[in-house]
């Protein structure tokens, strides 16, 4: 709670409303309510599919719940953590936090500069109290002895001589608790700001990279399968680098469980610069100066060569996406620019060719187009051929992983193979009904890469670490005050009285108080 501001001279409705609202917002109760709201608001994001995490699941949700999905979309159900209501909660929470910790910072600075206050009149009223009846030395010496004992224990100590010949020693310790508390809360603000800037100035892209020098890519938006730039990043801002996959190794247990993935790449970081070999694995990303390349997954790309009715050949390397953990993979090979009559040089859209395929690295000996092992022990490709209009001219953003099902449905694209898909092993070819030929040349591995640049990741990490240290200080520390009053006794020597006040919940205080009083009593004693 911040200290209450001085009351305004004239009551002003708007001002008092504002002031009361601010007080309400920065109160601990409001903060608790907002914390709860934040926790509750986070739940839908784990129940509903999130577009930023798994867009394909959002699409699936749309097909399963066609009525509900658009309504959920409207209220941000598929982007909970970017929704205005989620932002409203955490922004209010952080406003409340600022309103709470800024006055506390001021108070703490003040507290750090003030000396411990003088002893209260009646020490016996404090939670801890002890009397040492008899000391041989005079009050001034006794006070210095007690003070040095307290200083040894890192108390902030002040010795005062009172008018009546008695001395008091005031001591306070545990400022680090509040220091830690403030560090923790300011670190949270740092993390929030860091995450925000990282979102604004960061970018990322995903890309399937097939092995081979002919399959490399360069860092630009158009070359990513999917990319997203922060609001303050322009496509032209992306740094230059090119990557090509020279080798990809996957090792498996005999059960088919993966053991390790290793990618060898060559990187070019300057236009026309040299290509440098680099190696990276699942947990060790390729760290470039302006981006990190992470290995997320892998699969097989199929190399198909099609020979059309005029004898022209085209070769395509098509990544097939894994559909299960044993790498049964599916994909398509589209050949829109084939069967062009060399005499007229005109393309007949009705003679375009497409293949739907399932690739299996190890065929089930019992039959069936599913894989029984993720490595290529007995690879086979199952192809279905289509001829007709692939629908690629219409300008609809078709997937590169499936044929246009609309074209098949409306008869523009006709199946020209038999009921069962044609099975091919690497090197085999298949002649279609019109005499054209497709060859399954080979497979190549591909790696699924995530390329990401986050300028504030280090800042966020630093914030989190400072926050944790602050948290530990704040939870482990105890603020407490101690006082000694030493009065002269009749004759010689002095009488010492001690009192202690824990300013926070501190169960071990009685013990510490006892130790300090015992130590301050000194080796020569004095009767308790």
């Amino acid at each position: 709670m911040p200290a209450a501001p001085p009351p305004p001279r004239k009551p002003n409705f708007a001002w008092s409303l504002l002031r009361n609202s601010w007080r309400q917002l920065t109160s601990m109760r409001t903060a608790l309510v907002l914390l709860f709201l934040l926790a509750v608001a986070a739940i839908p994001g784990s129940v509903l599919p999130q577009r930023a995490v798994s867009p394909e699941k959002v699409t699936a949700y749309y097909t399963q719940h066609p009525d509900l999905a658009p309504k959920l979309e409207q209220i941000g159900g598929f982007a909970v953590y970017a929704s205005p209501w989620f932002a409203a909660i955490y922004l209010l929470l952080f406003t409340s936090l600022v309103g709470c910790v800024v006055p506390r910072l001021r108070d703490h600075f003040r507290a750090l500069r003030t000396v411990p206050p003088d002893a209260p009149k009646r020490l016996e009223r404090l939670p801890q109290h002890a009397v040492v009846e008899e000391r041989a030395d005079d009050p001034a010496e006794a006070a210095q002895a007690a003070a040095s004992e307290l200083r040894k224990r890192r108390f902030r100590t002040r010795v005062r001589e009172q008018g009546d010949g008695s001395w008091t020693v005031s001591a306070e310790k545990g400022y680090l608790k509040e220091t830690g508390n403030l560090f923790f809360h300011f670190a949270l603000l740092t993390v929030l700001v860091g995450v925000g800037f990282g979102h604004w100035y960061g970018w990322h892209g995903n890309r399937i990279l097939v092995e081979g020098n002919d399959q490399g890519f360069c860092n630009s938006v158009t070359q990513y399968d999917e990319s997203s730039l922060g609001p303050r990043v322009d496509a032209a801002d992306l740094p230059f680098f090119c990557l090509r996959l020279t080798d990809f190794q996957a090792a498996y247990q005999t059960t088919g469980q993966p053991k390790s993935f290793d990618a060898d790449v060559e990187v070019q970081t300057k236009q026309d610069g040299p290509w440098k070999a680099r190696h990276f694995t699942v947990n060790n990303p390729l760290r470039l100066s302006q981006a990190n390349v992470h290995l997320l997954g892998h699969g097989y790309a199929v190399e198909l060569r099609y020979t059309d009715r005029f004898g022209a050949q085209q070769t395509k390397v098509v990544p097939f996406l894994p559909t299960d953990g044993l790498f049964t993979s599916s994909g398509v090979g589209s050949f829109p620019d084939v069967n062009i009559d060399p005499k007229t040089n005109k393309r007949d859209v009705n003679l375009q060719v497409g293949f739907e395929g399932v690739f299996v690295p190890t065929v089930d000996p019992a039959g069936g187009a599913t894989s029984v092992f993720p490595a290529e022990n007995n690879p086979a490709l199952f192809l279905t051929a289509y001829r007709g209009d692939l629908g690629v001219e219409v300008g609809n953003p078709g997937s590169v992983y499936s044929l246009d099902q609309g074209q098949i449905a409306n008869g523009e694209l006709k199946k020209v193979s038999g009921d069962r898909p044609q099975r091919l092993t690497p090197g085999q070819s298949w002649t279609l009904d019109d005499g054209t030929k497709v060859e399954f040349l080979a497979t190549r591995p591909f790696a699924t890469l995530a390329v990401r640049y986050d300028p504030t990741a280090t800042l966020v990490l630093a914030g989190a670490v400072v926050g944790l240290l602050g948290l530990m200080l704040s939870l482990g520390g105890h603020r407490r005050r101690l006082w000694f009053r030493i009065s002269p006794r009749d004759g010689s020597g002095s009488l010492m009285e001690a009192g202690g006040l824990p300013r926070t919940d501190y169960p071990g205080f009685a013990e510490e108080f006892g130790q300090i009083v015992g130590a301050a009593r000194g080796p020569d004693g004095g009767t308790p």
Partner: protein
Amino acid sequence: MAELSNQLMAVTVLSYLAAMVLYAAEYAFGNKSHIGRAAQRPARQLVGSGAPVPPSADDVEVEEAPAPAVRDRGVLLGRIAVGFNWLAFALHLGTVVTRGIAADRMPWGNMYEFTLTVTLVGSAVWLGVLTRKPELRHLGLFAALALVMLLGADGLIAYAPVGPLVPALNSYWFIIHVSTIILASGIFLIGAVPAAMFLVRAGYDEGKRRFPYSLGAKVPEAALLERLTFRLHAFAFPLFTFGALIAGPIWAEASWGRYWGWDPKEVWAFISWIVYASYLHARATPSVKRTVATWIAILGFATMLMNLFGVNLFFSGLHSYANAGG
């Protein structure tokens, strides 16, 4: 070795069950703990004040005479219970170690192994608390109950045969991230026991006598339970912060390319963190009642359970290798 681990697991659950039954026997037949009795006295006097009869020597005799015999029996049962508790802990440790040897790695690769180790930490923390504060022995019934339920659920729902780690888990961050979360979860687990019993005891002290509150008659003093609850949570919270919000994101950055991506597991870790943070704030706020604060701690543990069982079984995400049977 894997077979041995499975057999040890069964014996472990039985031993915890035996400890639980013996704790329950002490609870039912034995006398109240010292603190329990001390706290009971004012209530009894209050009842007595309705009938203005001065306490006579007879009353005192009736109260005190059977006590030594009953207490001896109770103490004996309690000591046997603690013995079984230690035995169960040793077997539990054996289960985890043999599992690790069988898999040739840290036994934290899936949900079964994770829960097995969390409960081991919980058991260790409970025995540590018990050794330092023997007067808390009456909590043993509830600590053992929690362990038996979690281990039973683990064996029934989450059991998975020994297997190697998927490549994504093949990192030293695996040990750092998972071990701190296991430690924190184990302490939160044992923290939830005094939290629940504090609520029961607080209700009992207010005069409630219906079922859950009737258990409060014999548990330790409310303030003691409340303080223990706080200390366990205050210890576990930074560990959880480190494991879930620092080590986890560092590893996620290296492995998945982003330090935070709202994966279901991350969402629920975030929720647990927020709820436990609320508990610590509520407890530090004088205007919030301690019972309210403690309810928040219970809620925090519920979110941890949700993250362990609910997220693994119902949602799929990047942490799916922790799945049951996976």
